């Protein structure tokens, strides 16, 4: 389909010419064709970011990416869902970038950084000559401003929580226009500090400070903002936004990234996020060439894609196991607030069920009842792996292959249950506990097809060992409310998706006993079990600056504790495959979020692809 490589005849030659003028040595001239700014400060020497890449590309072309939802705001501080942060990650620069292929941080606005010997103070050296999309210079002032806004507690956004450590803020100062110094509330592992502080997107102080002072920051840079008035710091700027239709990003002519020949990046003229809410429609539109890439493909469609590779001129790339883990857990929460239908301290699942759920061997028996191979064959069409940790095999650095949990052994499960005193006393194929209560519980999940199917297998597997499990499919919002607010459940089947960086240190909300995603028993004032106390201290050690080998050992130790306790019953994880069009160069899909777009600045259309 040649329709997607349309060039704007007027703009392109100009920009290419400007790009060729830029030597890597001292390219201080602004690209022609961009509005000329009126910098108040003397123009500093330009220190471009020479972006590493496999192939030097050529400029031009367009990349159309299908997404389920569009951005809800172009204000990176106010966004708190992925559809917004994905686009905002392209629009706004951060101190560093995450190199998905190498799984390590790479320079971005900060050309280099160092940490003090005691591990508390980090110094960031900013790139000189960086500019916003309106040509205004980008300096340490803007970084300070962005931190200040992110720490504005009246805005209440998730970035606040991402940039605080144990609830404490980072102290920031700027000794000069090109140096930022951050003092952490505690020493932290290098692999965590750099990406975490880079969650902050740099905003233009000269535009937004007046709005912030006037108390109108929350609605600034919303999706209603005229595209040309959105001043961005990243490789892209907003060209057009049509709600529920598409978001078109164009090249930011002032962006500081160049290739080894000094040609300004990004290569592509346009990056289009096309909203396609129906996944079948997305597959069809990839097949007929309207869409160049998909963010997600269901395992059931892998076969379809494999068949169409030659015809569609694409390659189905195997990215290995996903970072998403699937599991279910039993409600071990106790009433903490009181005032409702339960007394303080009462188990939320009720005393009878709590007695079963709190028994480690009961949970082990449940885990041994689950036929994970059948789930892989049916739900994932054979494209899945067994998984025993949040650190799925997709976590290259932290997956611990030696850790595995109690796997399928129905006879063993039955023996274990019998030893615990569970017996079928009335011949109805359902076990009763020692007091005669039949072992029945409800497994809740939300209406995602894969989860529903997994829950069906769990139900069937448990029935075979004499546990009556009812599957109940509920609204996602209700499920979240159940697990965080009212604890009105017996067991929930859910999943957690990986973040950037793929590091167990990012999952403190899961591992820590006092945290809110410590699903089976959240917000514990102090650890209720010795195993959880151990988990807490291990996690703390994991955050500290240590060698990678040591951190991996700690992570494996945490995995082992969770598997041993069976607080969560692990289910298989799917393998990810993505079709990648052959006509794009430097397109390297990875398993880490932003699978296809992490290096989109270097992606180009191969000249042979043109007609």
């Amino acid at each position, binding site marked *: 389909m040649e329709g997607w490589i349309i060039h704007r005849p007027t703009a392109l030659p100009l920009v290419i010419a400007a790009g060729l003028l830029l030597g890597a040595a001292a390219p201080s001239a602004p690209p022609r064709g961009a509005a000329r700014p009126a910098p108040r400060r003397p123009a500093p020497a330009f220190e471009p970011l020479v972006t590493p890449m496999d192939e030097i590309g050529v400029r031009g072309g367009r990349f159309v990416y299908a997404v389920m939802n569009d951005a809800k705001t172009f204000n990176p501080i106010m966004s708190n869902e992925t559809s917004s942060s994905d686009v905002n990650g392209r629009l706004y620069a951060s101190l560093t970038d995450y190199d998905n292929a190498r799984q390590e941080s790479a320079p971005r606005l900060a050309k280099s950084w160092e940490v003090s010997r005691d591990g508390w103070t980090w110094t960031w050296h900013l790139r000189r000559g960086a500019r916003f999309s309106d040509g205004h210079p980008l300096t340490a002032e803007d970084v300070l401003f962005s931190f200040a806004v992110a720490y504005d507690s009246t805005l209440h956004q*998730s970035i606040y*929580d991402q940039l605080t450590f144990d609830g404490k803020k980072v102290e920031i100062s700027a000794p000069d226009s090109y140096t930022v110094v951050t003092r952490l509330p505690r020493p932290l592992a290098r692999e965590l500090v750099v990406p975490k502080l880079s969650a902050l997107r740099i905003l233009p102080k000269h535009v937004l400070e007046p709005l912030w002072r006037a108390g109108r920051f*929350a609605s600034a840079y919303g999706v209603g903002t005229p595209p040309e008035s959105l001043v961005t710091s990243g490789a892209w700027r907003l060209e057009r936004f049509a709600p529920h239709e598409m978001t078109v990003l164009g090249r930011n002519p002032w962006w500081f990234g160049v290739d080894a020949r000094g040609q300004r990046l990004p290569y592509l003229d346009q990056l289009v996020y096309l909203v396609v809410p129906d996944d079948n*429609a997305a597959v069809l539109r990839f097949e007929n060439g309207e869409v160049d890439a998909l963010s997600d493909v269901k395992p059931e469609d892998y076969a379809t894609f494999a068949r169409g590779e030659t015809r569609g001129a694409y390659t189905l790339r195997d990215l290995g196991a996903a970072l998403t883990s699937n599991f279910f857990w039993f409600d071990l929460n106790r009433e903490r607030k009181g005032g409702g239908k339960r007394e303080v301290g009462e188990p939320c699942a009720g005393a009878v069920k709590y007695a079963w759920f709190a028994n480690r061997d009961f949970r082990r028996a449940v885990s041994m009842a689950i036929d994970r191979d059948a789930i892989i064959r049916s739900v994932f069409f054979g494209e899945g792996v067994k998984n025993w940790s949040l650190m799925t095999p997709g976590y290259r650095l932290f997956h611990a292959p030696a850790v595995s949990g109690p796997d399928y052994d129905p006879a063993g499960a039955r023996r274990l249950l019998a030893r615990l005193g569970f017996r079928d006393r009335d011949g109805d194929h359902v076990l009763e506990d020692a007091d005669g209560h039949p072992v029945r519980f409800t497994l809740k999940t939300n209406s995602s097809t894969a989860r529903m199917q997994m829950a069906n297998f769990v139900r069937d597997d448990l029935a075979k060992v004499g546990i009556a499990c009812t599957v109940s499919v509920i*609204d*996602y*919002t209700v499920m979240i409310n159940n697990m965080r*607010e009212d604890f009105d459940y017996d067991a929930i089947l859910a999943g957690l998706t990986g973040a950037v960086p793929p590091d167990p240190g990012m*999952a403190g909300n899961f591992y820590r006993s006092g945290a809110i995603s410590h699903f089976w028993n959240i917000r514990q004032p102090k650890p209720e079990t010795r195993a959880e106390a151990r988990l807490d201290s291990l996690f703390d050690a994991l955050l500290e600056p240590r060698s990678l080998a040591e951190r991996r050992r700690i992570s494996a130790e945490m995995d082992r504790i969770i598997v041993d306790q069976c607080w969560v019953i692990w289910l298989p994880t799917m393998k990810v495959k993505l079709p990648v069009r052959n006509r794009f160069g430097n397109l390297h899909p990875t398993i880490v979020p932003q699978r296809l777009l992490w290096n989109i600045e270097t992606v180009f259309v191969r000249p042979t692809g043109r007609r």
Partner: protein
Amino acid sequence: MMRTYVLRRLLQLVPLLLALTALTFLLLRLAPGDYLSSVASNPDVSDATLDAMRHRFGLDRSWLVQLGLYLRNVLFHLDFGESFSLHRPVFAVLRGALLNTLLLALAGALVTWGLAIPLGAWAAARHDTPVDRALSFVAFLGLSVPEVLSGLLLLMLAARTGWFPAGGMRSIDWDLLGPGAKALDLLRHLVLPALVVGLVPLASRMRQMRASLLDVLGQEYVTTARAMGLPERSVILRHGMRNALNPLITLFGYTLGSLLSGSLVAEVIFAWPGLGRVTYEALLSRDLYLVVGSVLMAAVVLVLGNLVADLLLAAADPRIRDG
């Protein structure tokens, strides 16, 4: 007389909208969870942040207090609130989607009525013949295949043949096109979703047309016209059609009211950026004021549509106007 009637009906809209607002608030409160629950699915968000947000959005108050505050803002400041997730005034969010939905719905109505009237008339002219039966069979076909299926099949057809775009409302290069090309582009995108929307009510409209014409053809003046030796074609076209269309005009008025509903499936499958998707997403994320705004807007359209229908009915049937 006429003016007071219209005025009275419009005044009746006020209590309706008030009741609807209260009902919407109550219903959203019935289900556990609120907008913050969807924010809370992000494990990075702390309890403190959630509590602060809940307070800022006023979601920590009882639904009656929320309702009262909302009504005060609406009545005294004409402020219908902001969408929680978009940080934008509700009607700014809804306006664009409303136009897109109206476009799709009108195109769908065009498909329905454009087919229903001639086909219905044909069926009536040939009533109780194989033509009549074949026509009703075809019309039922459109009714019996669920939209979720016909949508997918049409989409496959579009994608595999390239005759139509596989969804969306406009091409990416729409901005660069000339006015004629823009209209053509929009039309090409509109055809398939309009078919999906329009074919469902075709059967019933067609049968109504058929019945109405049959009714007229049984009347004495038509028999007289026939007896005078006028050709059947001119009997039907000259005398039959004009009178047979009267009741359908009223019906059309009623369908005006439901223009905003009934295109969610087509909007999702064909990626049409309409009101259905906006409302549905708002509903899922419990974006309170956005839901209320959208419900109110649909209600206003409905009542206005009904008013038009009643006026048409009154114009057509003097008994009701005087009664």
